[in-house]
């Protein structure tokens, strides 16, 4: 098992390398540069800035330089937020995004599994239809509609929650964003869970368990759940990577100072180092969570072995 993890981590390095290389050259090919703003700088200042950041060197030299720094964990300075290095920006924003994303993920997994199981146990009855309706709504209504409606209902009409802002991490400020992030995920988890639970309940070992006279609770929780949860485990990997690295929509609407906005802003401003930093962070999260999921798979399902 340990060997397997080590091997996976080693193979992640070339993957990361390919992603970094692709992203580096793609963003460099794009027209424009970090210092071509609408109200332009005077040519002398621009030239000085570009010289300072080494942007006039040949591209391959810059690439080598970037790789060298990256291997030391140095993401470089941000061009458009010159007081910060990219590392500092992530140190500030990432904990916020992770807090929101992790809460949303936990909420989605718990509620989604619960709803999916309820639906499966009441197949083709009212409970089932209610869950299906909720799941359809959750996966159809886009986030940028849910978020302002939550603001409107809970923030402006009922005045239960603040409309936006981080508020230094106050509990009430987190409810809106977490709910918005979680709703579509709840829908997906509930749908997956319903399908796999229905299948699990039909299998032979469940029939045997029932024949032995075990209680419903014991049949579902101790025997069916373990098999039914596998699709949820594989869903959790990519979902966790996406949720923890911040959502641009949610962070924009609720005015949250997380990392979700970095990618778009940086790409539009040609803040090369920040774009690269975001790509690297997302890639690392994806790789790590896929690995965790594969390990979890072996834990949940003893038939899966990694030798």
């Amino acid at each position, binding site marked *: 098992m340990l060997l397997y993890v080590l091997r996976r981590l080693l193979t992640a390095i070339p993957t990361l390398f390919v*992603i970094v290389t*692709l*992203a580096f050259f*793609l*963003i460099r090919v*794009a*027209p*424009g540069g970090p210092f071509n703003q609408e109200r332009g700088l005077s040519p002398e200042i621009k030239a000085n800035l570009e010289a300072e950041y080494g942007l006039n060197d040949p591209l391959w030299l810059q690439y080598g330089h970037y790789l060298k720094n990256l291997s030391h964990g140095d993401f470089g300075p941000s061009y458009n937020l010159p007081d910060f290095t990219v590392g500092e920006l992530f140190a500030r924003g990432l904990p916020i995004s992770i807090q929101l994303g992790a809460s949303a993920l936990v909420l989605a997994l718990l509620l989604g599994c619960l709803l999916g199981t309820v639906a499966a146990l009441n197949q083709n009855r009212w409970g089932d239809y209610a869950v299906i309706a909720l799941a*359809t709504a959750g996966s*159809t*209504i*886009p986030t*940028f*509609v849910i*978020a*302002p*409606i939550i*603001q*409107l209902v809970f923030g*402006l009409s009922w005045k239960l929650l603040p*409309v936006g802002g981080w508020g230094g991490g106050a509990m009430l400020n987190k409810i809106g964003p977490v709910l918005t992030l979680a709703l579509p995920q709840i829908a997906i988890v509930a749908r997956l869970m319903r399908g796999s639970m229905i299948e699990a309940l039909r299998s032979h070992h469940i029939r045997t368990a029932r024949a032995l006279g075990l209680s419903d609770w014991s049949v579902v929780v101790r025997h069916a759940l373990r098999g039914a949860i596998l699709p949820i485990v594989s869903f959790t990997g990519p979902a966790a990577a996406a949720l923890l690295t911040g959502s*641009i*929509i949610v962070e*924009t*609407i609720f005015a949250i100072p997380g990392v979700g906005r970095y*990618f*778009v802003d940086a*790409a*539009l401003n040609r803040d090369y180092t920040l774009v690269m930093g975001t*790509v690297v962070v*997302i890639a690392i999260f994806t790789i790590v969570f896929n690995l965790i999921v594969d390990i979890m798979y072996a834990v949940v399902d003893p038939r899966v072995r990694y030798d």
Partner: protein
Amino acid sequence: MTDAAVDNEPAANVVVGRSLWGDAWARLKANRAAMFSLFYLGLMALVCIAGPWFVPHDYTTIYSDYVRTPPSTEAYPKADMVKGALDDVLKRMRVDLKDWKLEDGRATITVAGTRPIDERYLRYVDRSDTFDDARMEAKSPDGLEMTFSAAVKQQYFLFGTDNVGRDLLSRTLVAGRISLAIGLLAGVVAVTIGVVYGATAGFLGGKVDEVMMRIVDVLYSLPFIFFVIMLVVFFGRNFVLMFLAVGAVLWLDMARIVRGQALSIRRHEYVQAAEALGVRQSGILKRHVIPNLLGPVVIYMTLLVPHVIILESFLSFLGLGVQEPMTSWGVLISVGAHNIGSANWMLLFPAFFLVSTLFALNFVGDGLRDALDPKDR
């Protein structure tokens, strides 16, 4: 004589088989949610395409007297709004109000100024969004006082107006045209590229297939949002070009599905039977492969269109998609989200149009899947 016997078989006994599509149509017709959604989509398309011609307001006209006016089925201006509009006009004319009254939709106004009033100032009255047809009634001998009358314009804003005073109904409908058109356009581009690419890989097979599918895998592994942002960066904010490009990104799934289908259809017994009977390759393609491929393609297309509409709205929400004064549902929702405190109808109407369309498209997609793929039921 056996030949004759065969020829004489009574025609009445021949059972007319239903075609693949006739069969699917019958199954779809039995699905009430899907049929209702299909009807709803047709209605939505019709309303969005034809509607703006029947709405008396143009989607770009700014009514400065009616900024953030709430939706109402009654005509504007409301009684208490006339005074405000009148004050605005008189400020422009640089005169003071002495007396005014409103009768039968015409206002009679008496004003006074410190200098003789030029009656050409009445143009300011006509220019207002509230008044029309201003006429001089009387003027005092020294010209310092004037009485004039003006008709009060009756206007309807069923969905209210937006934050600069444009009619929201016509904007929502025009936005619908754009959103639906983009969904279809990018959907068609994606499906075309995907089908051609996937079918080529599936039919040529071997090394070519291997290489073509590895390319798809590599493109898959890049974060999707990175792709889209790069496209915005390259194509600027020209939205037609951009959505051709977005369509060009979304073909990956289609290519995989079509390739898989093409590979499996070629191995089916009925294709082998046709080959054994000496049917030519083009005949097999036309009679067996294409009809069997069309099912998944149609299903995928109906599920792709809502995907593209959401993507367009997402980009427009970020300010990267459709640009003012052109509009789309995403743009309207974005502006609405900024104005929820003062004008929640700006969010609610476009959001309802977008969400109901997405629902309908999903139901039609699900219905088609059930209808075209009976194994799956």
